[in-house]
């Protein structure tokens, strides 16, 4: 029987590439809870937001937290001298300061264990996602996968 190419295998076949127990907050959690969650796992580059039933609602990318932390921590007089952060973004953030994870989160595409690796990779590259949440059939968060690790793993396999 012909061997199934790695591209055509389901995501669930690669347990060594799954990260379980990722940084998670409830949709009503505060900004400081979100920051604490990401501080526990900075490699995730995002915090995952769930509802009461643990269903994934969205993600809070690290970059979105950076902006809000700068606004909280740095005096406003310093903002214009920050080169790579848009001062207008900070001013806008200051006007509508986020209070909860709900205010900070953005929608995200998730994958399931039976999705094909090929489809996952194409989707992540197309969207520019560095990490994609993994959910079960009920939409509950299981963990996440990193684009870099997926590609590095494929490179190792092609070198072998």
């Amino acid at each position, binding site marked *: 029987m012909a061997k199934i190419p790695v591209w055509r295998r389901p995501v*669930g076949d690669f*347990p*060594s*590439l*799954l*990260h*379980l*127990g*990722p*940084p*998670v907050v409830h949709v009503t959690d505060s900004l400081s809870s979100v920051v604490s*969650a990401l501080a*526990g*796992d900075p490699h*995730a580059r995002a915090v995952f937001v769930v509802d009461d039933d*643990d269903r994934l609602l969205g993600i809070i990318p690290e970059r979105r937290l950076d902006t809000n932390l700068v606004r909280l921590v740095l005096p406003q007089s310093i903002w214009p001298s920050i080169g790579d952060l848009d001062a207008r973004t900070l001013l806008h953030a200051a006007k509508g300061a986020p209070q909860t994870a709900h205010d900070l989160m953005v929608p995200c595409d998730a994958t399931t*264990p039976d999705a094909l690796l090929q489809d996952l990779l194409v989707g992540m590259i197309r969207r520019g996602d560095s990490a994609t949440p993994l959910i*079960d059939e009920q939409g*509950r*968060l*299981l*963990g*996440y996968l990193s684009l870099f690790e997926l590609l590095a793993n494929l490179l190792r396999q092609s070198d072998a």
Partner: protein
Amino acid sequence: MPRILLVDDEPRIARALEFALRDADVQLASLSDASQIDDVLEQLRPDAILLDIGLASDDGLGLCSRLKRDVRFSEIPIVLLSGQTNAETKAAGFSAGADDFIAKPFVPTELIARVRAQIARRGRA
């Protein structure tokens, strides 16, 4: 087949582990209420315990320390799980008698390898 008891009050971790270990040739049981752990350990006689430090109902480190002082359970390897990865937390875990420490998030392949190593070291399975 090694029996592993997960003690964690977050059902998310149990659900993710059940999924990740479905082909790992281990028997996973989970306990969300740490107050029942003595009874469960007596009945299940697990080969290893995965214990979350951040239990809401109990102090995970205190529980680890208590189990290691109890002659009924002291030989069962305890692997701590924690979202806190700083050196102080790890040191506190080993001071409490833990046999290993795994930071969340974790890769299931590494977790099961570490648990198997602890079980083999004790010659339990």
